[in-house]
């Protein structure tokens, strides 16, 4: 029986190849090192600032606005109920274009910035008109 020979054939090429592989695979990490985009700051319109409070408190809106809007659309379309009364007892019409974007008319700064940053692409705007006051 031949002895167990642990020689690597073409050692030089293999090592170069391995090194090249590691460099290529990790390329996106070190190339983008330190270049992370800063988390976007939400820009409020004057009206939104003046109103101080959205339909719910800010923390809730930040975390749950998608669930809120989902409930809104089902309630409006399927249950024919269009008024939302928040825990403080204030009533709002449930409408993305006519209520949300009435205050937050800066969709590009308010919605899109964060959505782009988080790489989410809601298809709301395929149908819902993005800014009711655009041409007024």
């Amino acid at each position: 029986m031949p002895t167990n020979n642990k020689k690597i054939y073409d050692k030089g090429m293999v090592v170069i190849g391995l090194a090249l592989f590691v460099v290529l695979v990790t390329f996106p990490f070190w190339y983008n090192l330190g270049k992370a985009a800063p988390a976007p700051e939400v820009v409020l319109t004057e009206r939104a600032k003046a109103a101080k409070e959205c339909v719910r408190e800010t923390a809730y809106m930040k975390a749950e606005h998608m669930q809120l809007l989902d409930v809104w659309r089902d309630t409006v379309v399927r249950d024919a109920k269009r008024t939302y009364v928040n825990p403080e007892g204030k009533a709002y019409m449930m409408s993305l274009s006519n209520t949300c974007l009435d205050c937050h008319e800066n969709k590009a700064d308010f919605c899109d910035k964060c959505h782009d940053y988080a790489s989410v692409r809601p298809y709301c705007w395929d149908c819902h008109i993005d800014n009711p006051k655009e041409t007024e």
Partner: protein
Amino acid sequence: MKSSRRRFLKLAGIAALGIGSRPVLDAAFAAGGGGAAPEAKVRRQPEALTAKQWAMVIDTRRFESAADMEPLIEACHAIHNVPHFENKRHEIKWIWETEYQHAFPGKENDYLPYEVKERQYLVLCNHCENPPCVRACPTKATFKNENGIVIMDFHRCIGCRFCMAACPFGARSFNFRDPRPFIAETNKKFPTRAKGVVEKCNFCAERLAEGKMPACVEASDGALVFGDLYDPQSEVRQVLTENYTIRRKQELGTSPAVYYIV
């Protein structure tokens, strides 16, 4: 510890009592405490108009030519952002006019009065009481709402067009193309549709919710009457008892809610 049958039964009895009392105590504490945070609620607008089954009566004698219907069609299509396509195969319509033989096939007797046969008829979704489109829809995107309106939930429509095949009135249109570039003037209060969904008349559900009559009824100057079919006091019922009316393809059993005085 020596266990006996007596001891086991005693323990089991106490345990059963404990488990049984839990819901009672829970209820008692919940009712007494009242510390739960108030929840958000949803409700209907107080001014909303409701009905068991909305219905429409169209007095076709009031429409002598297509030009008389133009303002009604225009009113509807403008507020609902209905696009206008030159290509007939892409056409989207919520309310439109058609000839007698297409509105009422099977009712074309020989020697009909000239004005009945030659008149144009206003047609739209019939908001059937037994709607075949609703049964055909695989995603429940189209459904009969609590006011009897056959309505579309565009969010759920997958564009299979089964409803279009099922509808005997051709009341549904499919968005083969993105409709936005073909809307002359967009009503910013109402959404448009996207490519790949079916659309049709919604009996102005969004206007009824605000206490307004449908746009076509408002523009019709009394030629269209709208109301609750199941309310004996409603204007629709009055008109129905005073006039002989017909419905489109009644023999199919879909029970249309749009009636025609001819």
